[in-house]
């Protein structure tokens, strides 16, 4: 419970956690891909190629990557609208993600969902939800189903700081604890709802402490420390799998882009954004650790960046020539 171990070195931690060099580099690469995806999304939007809006998670990569590595690939994932990173780190096909992003028929949701509603049910990715907190109560059902079917998956439910003030948040935590459901609650606290600083809208912080009122073990950690995220998520998942009930982890992180594309960032200062970007950026921090420990050369960061960009650019090229859905099919998929 409570704070993370403070005195370990990076390498010590990595060894303890049994990470090989390749795995560490792979995690770094994934974070780069996520970053490049979000940057490209922003660029495409500026070029007028994206219909609607998007909610970019650049700056929150460590949470996504740490979480996905800490859990099983067949664990259920309930995601929120700022979920590209989680999707990518759960090994989604970037091409199909980009197609959905651009509303193409080949996209994960055949262009019907868009950025906010990407899902891949075949890999137990139960979709991103456009209603803040809307997916949280679904985890109760997933948890009940896991119990009824005697499975050993867990349900990872990800939501933001804003969602913690929705009624269903409390209802769900209550029932999850009551029935000891196998749910890992991840609260990605990026400090802001839409424009409201979490401190202005919550009577008592940290958010994670609310879990205590429901008897749920809780952790409040630095979400931009990938290994910290990994460790806590890994331990929590194990605990949950043993049947002891849900666990709540709040990860403190930050988003560089506005809430959505119509956000002009009037509610925070440029200084604040820059501080996070220069001193607390998760990719920067993890990269520095790798470099300091001889696992990566300094100039490799650029290579990884470019490699990530290449993957994203290929996805864009793929998606751009992919056909739009046929308008005559507009009424399909209303009913199964």
């Amino acid at each position, binding site marked *: 419970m409570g704070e993370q171990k403070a005195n370990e070195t990076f390498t010590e931690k990595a060894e303890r956690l049994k990470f090989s060099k390749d795995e560490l580099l792979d995690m770094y690469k994934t974070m780069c891909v996520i970053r490049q995806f979000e940057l490209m999304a922003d660029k495409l939007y500026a070029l007028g190629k994206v219909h609607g809006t998007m909610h970019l998670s650049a700056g929150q990569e460590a949470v996504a990557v740490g979480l996905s590595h800490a859990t099983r690939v067949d664990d259920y994932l309930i995601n929120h609208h700022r979920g590209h990173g989680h999707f990518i780190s759960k090994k989604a096909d970037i091409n199909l993600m980009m197609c959905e992003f651009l509303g193409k028929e080949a996209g994960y949701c055949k262009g019907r969902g868009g950025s906010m*509603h990407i899902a891949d049910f075949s890999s137990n990715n139960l979709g991103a939800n456009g*209603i803040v907190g809307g997916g949280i*109560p679904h985890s109760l059902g997933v948890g009940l189903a896991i119990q*009824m079917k005697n499975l050993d998956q867990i349900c990872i439910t990800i939501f933001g700081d804003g969602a913690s003030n929705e009624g269903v948040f409390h209802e769900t935590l*209550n*029932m999850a604890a009551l029935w000891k459901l196998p749910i890992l609650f991840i609260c990605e606290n990026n400090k802001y709802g839409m424009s409201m600083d979490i401190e202005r809208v919550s009577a008592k912080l940290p958010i994670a402490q609310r879990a205590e009122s429901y008897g749920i073990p809780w952790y409040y950690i630095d979400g931009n420390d990938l290994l910290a995220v990994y460790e806590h998520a890994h331990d929590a998942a194990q605990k949950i799998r043993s049947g002891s009930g849900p666990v709540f982890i709040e990860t403190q992180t930050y988003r560089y882009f506005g809430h959505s594309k119509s956000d002009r960032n009037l509610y925070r200062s440029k200084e604040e954004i820059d501080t996070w970007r220069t001193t607390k950026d998760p990719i920067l921090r993890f990269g520095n650790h790798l470099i300091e420990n001889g696992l990566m050369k300094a100039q490799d960061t650029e290579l990884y960046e470019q490699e990530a960009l290449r993957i994203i650019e290929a996805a864009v090229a793929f998606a751009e020539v992919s056909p739009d859905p046929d308008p005559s099919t507009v009424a399909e998929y209303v*009913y199964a």
Partner: protein
Amino acid sequence: MPEITYVEAIRSALREEMRRDERVFIIGEDIGRYGGAFGVTTGMLDEFGDKRIIETPISEPSIIGAAVGAAVVGMRPIAEIMFMDFTLLTLDQIGNQAAKMHYMFGGKATVPMVIRMPGGSGTGAAAQHSQSLETLLMHLPGLKVVTPSTPYDAKGLLLTAIRDLNPVCFIEHKLLYKTKGEVPEGEYTIPFGVADIKRDGTDLTIVSNGIMVRKALAVAERLAQEGINVEIIDPRTLVPLDSETIINSVIKTGKLLVIHEACETAGWAGEIMAVISSSRAFDYLDAPMRRLTGKNVPIPYNRVLERAAVPQEEDIEREIRAIVKGAY
């Protein structure tokens, strides 16, 4: 054929399907030892245990949310919302989640869940516990809306609802619970989108649901002795709607009367009238289409007012007579 009550019919559908299909479970408030607010699940806890008769705290949105989550990963949940009025609390989970997921995920998610909800007035439960809100639910593409009026219909439709791959709102009128009707033993289902002609007639087509079907039938029997012969159609499922049966009936009779307890403005009578006037039945209308509905009021507490707020047999009789006489 045995005669059982509407409640018993519903319970037997639940029981039989839960025995057949272990994915089916019921989730709701007070459905265990208490047997549910209207006694529907009486005795089921003993048979199925608390892992399949799941009693919840008072958290309606999350009851529906839980059902959504369970359905999406392959279970067949049946959520019981104690009063239809409480669905207003749950509209995000019903309307933004359950109704939308199949579509917005490109057909890749299915949500095979049932929401059972007692609705309607006449028990003195007043404004917040007496509504008929089927119109709101009809308006959300992705949902199916079922309103059985007899024990026979209730059982057959409920089985279809449980087996349907879509979220189904199953609306039970409270005053029907104790009514009896013939229900065959053995398994049978009633398909959605098939209306039932509860009474054949020639002078007027009445479309009606829930408790109003019973009232209309009683009036029709009396009027038949005077040579007034009305046809009564019970759509049974409002979504999907069997418009063909209604169209053919109006072609036969030339006159339409829609009767529902739900209040008038934007009530589903307007939907039927729009369907008819856009159909080939238009050219056979020999009088203006009429509707007889609940008044645009919250349901009052006082018994006399409560009666006055929704159509009663005398209102139905008066309206039928007026239409047949050519008053409109």
